């Protein structure tokens, strides 16, 4: 069979639709090319297993989970060309969808499961697998009803940076020609640059200008620090996010880092002892310690509150989605809906939730016996997973970042406090809480990945039902692999800090160490920093009052500033390119916009690939960052200036490559 002629995405792919206009995907609803074929599923599973194992190791060692979906989409394009029949666009979506689960499930697991080992609770392999599996399944199940709202109804309102990059890779790769070369070029440049900078000591990755005496004085005396993570990945991310979202993100970061941190220091530096939840006197802390110790918690409160607003806003459409499904079920099948709007049936979702809930109940009952504790635990798992699903979908759709650690932290704290009330404590209690947190955390990160996947499918014309079914398969594979990998690693290594008398090598697993500290603290009746959360909640309410998207702002408050500031540069480039293309108008303007998205997606993809290479290289025994090291690496002013020059060059490349007109010959249809 011939592959259908692939064209570009329609003009209205990234724009809100005027009333009455419908978005027509590349593969129209009336066609049904091969989608969930054996080939697609097999490759998807293989990639999933591979990336899960690698990602688990890298996550435990350096706390960094690989960005899997974009690299897998590139691999899928490459693999597709090896076969006699080239893979269809929709098969590639399935491969990416299954494979993409790896990073999501690992993120959930790596944040929580090692804590069980650090606490010497030694879980059985089937327990680690079950936690990941149950969480992942809940994440997919709860997201499906939200699909119509996040993917269809709000079309054009969310930038979906990661999904944009995947879609551009798939479409451009399939189409070939001039734009494919451009994509490849951008990917190569960003991959090389980001790999070099993040893996080795070529020059500083983060620019903070503290070699300038005035800036250093500001950082010392006022705890006002500006930092800037000069990476191609974040530049591309900011471009795709657009100016408005990146401005909001930055505004949140400015409030946290340049208002709240200095303010807390202003008063706190007069305090002789440590102020809970910090561990040392504020006067002795630097800006980033104050940020992590206090201000981040304010951000967590803001995110959670913004999430509640998000649920309220999407409620109407979610209910509508259910009623469509119920009506379709009554009238026998979903023949009324087009192929590209068909979900897994509502009965399957309900059955899935019931089965998952029973399984979770059985699992928790095995830990703590029957009774109130079991019911409360089950309730917490379901409530938090449901609630965070919307948060994750919104966050991923706007900024491509998921506040996993903050939400897990919130889960640990609330669960500890509630379960303590019901008399659960000690080792069982800690295991119980960490199991809940593990499931919620996995659900959160899987649902974020799923919404990306569904948006890609929406743009290209996949069948949601096929994608959703394959998602469960992906979760199963990833859960088994990550569960076994962690058990395996736990035999040869020790997590967290070296225990006295244990000669095994140490895997740092930074996030899990944090969670372990939290669960220990709160299970021993440590006070909860309610005030910081509440203050964050007020900020979210204020932002809603100002009609500013509260979740984006809250994410900006919570994420480190250095990850937000480069996105702003990308946002500005997108803004000015848009103006330039409007001035140019017509075909020339359209070409500029298309090329801009292609180059930015290439930078995103390249950054992700560079990260994967780096992570892979770190698993080589004897690896050291000093393998590549310039003599000026430690000389801050040179090192940061070079970094700044490199980033400026990337910006210039993004601009020039977009503005440059394609050769007339290549533009022929």
């Amino acid at each position, binding site marked *: 069979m011939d592959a259908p002629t692939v064209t570009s995405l329609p003009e209205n792919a990234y724009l809100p639709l005027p009333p009455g206009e419908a978005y027509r995907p590349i593969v129209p609803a009336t066609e049904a090319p091969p989608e969930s074929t054996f080939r697609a599923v097999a490759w998807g599973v293989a990639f999933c297993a591979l990336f899960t194992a690698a990602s688990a190791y890298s996550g435990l060692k350096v706390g960094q989970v690989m960005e899997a979906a974009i690299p897998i989409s590139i691999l899928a394009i490459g693999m597709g060309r090896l076969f006699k029949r080239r893979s269809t666009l929709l098969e590639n979506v399935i491969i990416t969808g299954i494979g993409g689960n790896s990073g999501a499930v690992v993120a959930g697991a790596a944040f929580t499961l090692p804590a069980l080992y650090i606490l010497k609770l030694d879980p059985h392999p089937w327990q680690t697998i079950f936690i990941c599996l149950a969480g992942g399944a809940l994440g997919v199940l709860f997201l499906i009803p939200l699909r119509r709202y996040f993917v269809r109804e709000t079309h054009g309102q969310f930038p979906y940076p990661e999904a944009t990059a995947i879609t551009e890779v798939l479409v451009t790769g399939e189409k070939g020609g001039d734009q494919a070369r451009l994509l490849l070029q951008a990917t190569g440049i960003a991959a090389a640059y980001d790999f070099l900078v993040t893996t080795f000591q070529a020059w500083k990755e983060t620019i903070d200008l503290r070699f300038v005496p005035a800036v250093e004085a500001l950082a010392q005396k*006022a705890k*006002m620090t500006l930092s800037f993570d000069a990476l191609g990945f974040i530049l591309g991310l900011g471009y795709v996010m657009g100016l*408005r979202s990146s*401005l*909001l993100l*930055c*505004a*949140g970061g*400015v*409030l946290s880092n*340049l*208002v*709240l941190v*200095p*303010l*807390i220091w*202003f*008063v*706190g530096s*007069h*305090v*002789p*002892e440590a*102020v809970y939840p910090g561990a040392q006197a504020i006067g002795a802390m630097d800006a980033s310690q104050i940020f992590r110790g206090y201000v981040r918690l304010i951000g967590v409160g803001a995110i959670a509150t913004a999430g509640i607003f998000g649920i309220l806003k999407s409620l109407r459409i979610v209910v509508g989605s259910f009623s469509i499904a119920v009506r379709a079920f009554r009238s026998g099948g979903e023949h009324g809906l087009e192929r590209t709007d068909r979900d897994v049936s509502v009965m399957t979702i309900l059955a899935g939730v019931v089965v998952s809930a029973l399984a979770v109940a059985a699992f928790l009952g095995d830990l703590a016996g029957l009774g109130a504790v079991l019911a409360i635990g089950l309730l917490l798992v379901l409530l938090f997973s449901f609630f965070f699903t919307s948060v994750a979908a919104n966050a991923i759709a706007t900024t491509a970042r998921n506040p996993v650690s903050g939400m897990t932290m919130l889960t640990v704290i609330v669960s500890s406090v509630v379960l303590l009330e019901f008399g659960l404590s000690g080792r069982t209690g800690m295991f119980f809480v960490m199991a809940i947190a593990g499931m919620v955390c996995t659900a959160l990160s899987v649902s974020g990945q799923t919404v990306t996947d569904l948006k890609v499918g929406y743009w290209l014309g996949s069948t949601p039902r096929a994608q959703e079914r394959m998602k469960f398969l992906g979760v199963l594979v990833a859960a088994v692999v990550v569960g076994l990998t962690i058990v395996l690693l736990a035999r040869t290594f020790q997590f967290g800090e070296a225990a006295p008398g244990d000669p095994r090598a140490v895997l740092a697993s930074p996030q899990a160490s944090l969670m372990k500290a939290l669960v220990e603290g709160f299970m021993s009746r440590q006070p909860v920093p309610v*005030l*910081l959360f*509440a*203050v964050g909640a*007020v*900020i979210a*309410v*204020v*932002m809603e*009052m*100002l*009609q*500013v998207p509260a979740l984006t*702002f809250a994410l900006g408050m919570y994420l480190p500033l250095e990850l937000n500031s480069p996105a702003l540069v990308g946002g500005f480039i997108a803004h000015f390119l848009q103006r330039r293309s409007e001035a140019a108008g017509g075909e020339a303007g359209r070409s500029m916009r298309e090329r801009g998205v292609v180059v930015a997606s290439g930078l995103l993809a390249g950054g992700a690939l560079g990260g994967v290479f780096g992570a892979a290289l770190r698993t080589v025994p004897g690896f050291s960052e000093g393998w590549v090291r310039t003599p000026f690496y430690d000389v801050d002013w040179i090192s940061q200036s070079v970094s700044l020059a490199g980033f400026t060059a990337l910006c210039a490349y993004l601009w020039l490559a977009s503005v440059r007109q394609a050769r007339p010959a290549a533009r022929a249809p």
Partner: protein
Amino acid sequence: MALEPLPPAGAPAGLPENAFRPLAPGEAYQPVVPAGAAPPEVTVRSVLQGVLWSVVFSAAATYIALKLGQGIESAIPIAILAVGVSTLLARAARGRASSLLENVNVLAVGATSGIVAGGSVFTMPAIYVLGLEGRSGFLQIFLVPLLGAVLGVFLLAPFRRYFTRELHGRLPFPEARATTEILVAGNRGGESALVLTWSAATAAVFDFVGPTMKGFADTFSTAAIGALSGFTERTKAVFSMNTSAAIFGLGYIMGLDYAAIILAGSLVSFLVLVPLLGWLGPHVAGAVPPAAVPLAAMPHDALFAAYVRPIGIGGIFAAGLLSILKMSPVIVRAGRQAVAEVVRLARGGGAAGVEERTDRALPMALVVAGVAATGAAILAYFRLSVLAGEPGATGMALLATGLTLAISFLFAAVSAWAIAMISITPISGMTLTTLIVTAVALSALGLTGERGMLQTLLIGGVVCTALSMSGSLVTQYQIGRWLGATPRTIEIANLLGSVVASAATTAVILLMAKVYGFAPDAAHPTPLPAPQPNAMAAVLRGVMGAGGAPWFLYAVGGVFAVAVELCGVSGLAFALGMYLPMDLNSPLVLGALAAWLLRRSSKDAATSAARHERGTLIASGFIAGGALVGVLAALLKFVEDSIGVAFVPDLTRLPGLGPVLQAWSNWLGLAAFLLLGAWVYWVSRRAAPAPPAA
């Protein structure tokens, strides 16, 4: 800022069809009163009315600006009142109805009030905040806005033709349009004036019985609720709401978007920053400057005053500068056009042919002489009064005068443009810029300390008034152009109005300084907030005064305003909200909510609009009535303090009823206020749209 022709939508009945569109080549605009006709224009009744409204609205505007940092709209209510008086004279007193041009004259004299008050109130109270009142006095505070207003008139006069004739139909002039419509539709004016009057009376009674006679609490506060005292003590988080009809009216006019931004600022101050300080407080043993007592010993409002207010000041300052930055294309354009126009006029391009009545202005020679005379007056005043005895006084006075004239010229053009386009002008931003430029220039010449600060403030006051004056004058020129008034009369009326308004404003400022003060000190523990003067004072103290300014908090506030601007929200409104106490901000939202609900109260757009308009009238009445009673209360207090006898009845002293009122005053205040809001909604809902004109 494109000069696109505006759609001729909604040209009101009574105005020629070409009033709101650019004219075709060769086409002439024929005003409502043609140049050939000369109905009574300047009469005893028009001047008397103008002077009366000028005094009334100057007092009200001064009070509102000192209390809430907001300017109020005076042109529209004065137009309504002028029409109302005319109807009254015609019907009740069986006299002659005022002519259209007489009403324009009333407006020209009266509307100066808001302008002069704005210019003066934004700067002059800073003299008290800085503690310089010993070096100043009534004459100085009176002269500054007067000189500024006169300068504003003379500086804008050469541009009249450009703005009203050459750009005919190309600038929207929102405020001039609304006022003209009221004046033309005089027949309905009688009813409107009646609504305005009784709503002002209602607000006056309401705002007098509550705060002054202590009938109910003037502020509802969660801190006064016994059941919440533990929570308040622990978290320092308090919600409070003033129960003033004037603020309700202001919120109604302001609209929900803007009111929400201001309240958002307050929420951040009182529910985010103050609780954060309260949380750190118990850990701190000693006092943290700028406060003198330990944090743990401070109640929530003391924490606010000591730490959060300076953050708000920093925010106001940064947002003011940002607003100038955002206006920079307009500034450049307006400046360029102003210079070009001056060059053209100097070459004799202005006077062409025989002057019609509707094009007859003060002669150019007189205008030039006027600017020169004002400049000379300013120079003499600086040299002989302010800087007397200073080494190098002549040079400094020359520099100061030059700065005043140059900055006034530039900003007058900008302000006229801004008013014509959007009816808003960034007065506080332009004034702050003036202060900084002046302070830096004078410091470079070695003039610092108290004299330097005073000198800078006086320059700022002149510039501030001049630029607000030009914004108001351009509106009146346009009204006159549409209706056919004589420009010269408008100019003279404005000069007269400036004198009256300067005197009234200065009197109110001095009264308020005496009774309430503008910055906390021993004699005045709870001063009027006066946000802009405090921001100006902070700048001056920083640049010219001795150290000790809470720089750190200012800086944090500046960064905060930038973050808010990044979100696409007005940083100035937000920072104003952060600075003002929450109780003054929360009622704004209630008023705005009433407006929002009325606008959506009916499916029929005309009905909703009529209801909303009725509400607007009531709200305007509330502002004027409430503000006047506020001034009256201050006056009574002043008299009481002077003669040592309390004669205002205190309801809480009543036997029997008194203790009940006292015990329930918090809740009574809330209930009375909510009832007032519901009543406004109910009364406005009954308004019906006007029958379509035949």
